[in-house]
């Protein structure tokens, strides 16, 4: 399984991404489990709403953080997210 650059990325309908006040962190919730996210991972996942492809996610974050060269890191993280079932491309 690898990210298809031609397809939009959705957050998984069977997982939930949510801000946890008590932990001051974004987390992913799924059956009987939870993953705590660091800020950059959370920023990436929030853009996976079905209306963007990888390239657009990279562009948007580079604009937001006024930087360039985020492509590799974002790609690597999205691969992990796909393996874990947090995102889909269907």
């Amino acid at each position: 399984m690898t990210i298809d650059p031609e397809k939009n990325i959705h957050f998984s309908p069977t997982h939930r991404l949510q801000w946890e006040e008590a932990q001051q962190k974004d987390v992913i919730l799924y059956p009987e489990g939870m993953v705590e996210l660091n800020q950059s991972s959370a920023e990436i996942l929030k853009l996976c709403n079905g209306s963007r492809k990888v390239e657009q996610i990279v562009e948007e974050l580079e604009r937001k953080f006024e930087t360039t060269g985020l492509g590799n890191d974002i790609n690597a993280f999205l691969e992990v997210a796909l393996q874990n079932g947090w995102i889909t491309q269907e």
Partner: protein
Amino acid sequence: MAGSHKSNITPPRWLLAELTYACPLQCPYCSNPLNYAKYPSELSTDDWKRVLTQARKMGAVQLGLSGGEPLVRKDLSELVKHARQLGYYSNLITSGYGLTEERIVELKQAGLDHIQVSIQASSQELNDHIAGTVSYEHKREVAHLVKKHGYPMVLCVVIHRENIHQMQQILEMAEELGADYLELANTQYYGWAHANRDLLLPTREQFEQAEAIAQAYKERVAGKMKIYYVVPDYYEDRPKACMNGWGTTFLTIAPDGVALPCHSARELPGLDCPNVNDYSIEAIWNESKAFNFFRGFDWMKEPCRSCDEKEKDFGGCRCQAYLLTGDMYNTDPVCSKSPNRHVVQEAIDSAKSASLVPGEKPLIFRNSKNSRDFA
């Protein structure tokens, strides 16, 4: 209430709400206390809502709705709705018995996140025998409906000597039903399972064979179906890190409102487990005697006290130490460093000899009549 560890107490993350001890099934490995019939009272809807609110405020985020059979509670959807508003991720842990399509939809609308259905075996005959109730076809139907309505579908199969030979078929059944997750839970010997241990504990050879089958299957379905394999700790040489450490993560509330650091803790002597009718969740978690009892490492005896692995497994399970050695402060006897490791070996030997003379003693099914005999 006494308490001195306050500064390093982490908040609860997991709330297990045992809504009722009532259950139409009679699984002989049920983890409810043997004498559950002694505690017939149940918290009201408002009590549960208050508990959910207070625990959420402290940081609990995963909510397990279990029992008994939680579907027996008429206010289940109302509680789910309340939980959703508070931001919980709610897991319904059910036998599926009595679950209709209408109720599945109603629970979805209320905001339920996930349904875990337990199946006892991969064949109707064995499932219905172990459950003590005709339920196999209905459970399969429920599994389909859960999937149809967009829930992540988790199948749970408790493994023991009566069904371990079906490992391959169980895996195939889960795949065929479209499970997203399959939990293969080797029986943990507490409560009813402990009473039936001679009849439920498989041999080491059976375990190893079944585990190899499960591992091979796991690789084959990777990316499609996740398999959680709960190891049988009698065949390990280190204990499980029980509850991720006492009073660090898990909070269980029994049907009558008693708050427990682990769901078997009710059977430990002298803990005086507090009731949510008398104290707030915050006071219970931070200050009660029960929740501070085994917090940290000060309570430990040797060999745990000076062991360099104590931060990894916390000395194992207190309930298992009590159940098998009679002293809840002892090292979990599963550990090969425990001077009591022989009691685990004796249990294994005893189960093995029982397996050679089948039918000698019958399984004790979990029901109110049998429970009253233990009271």
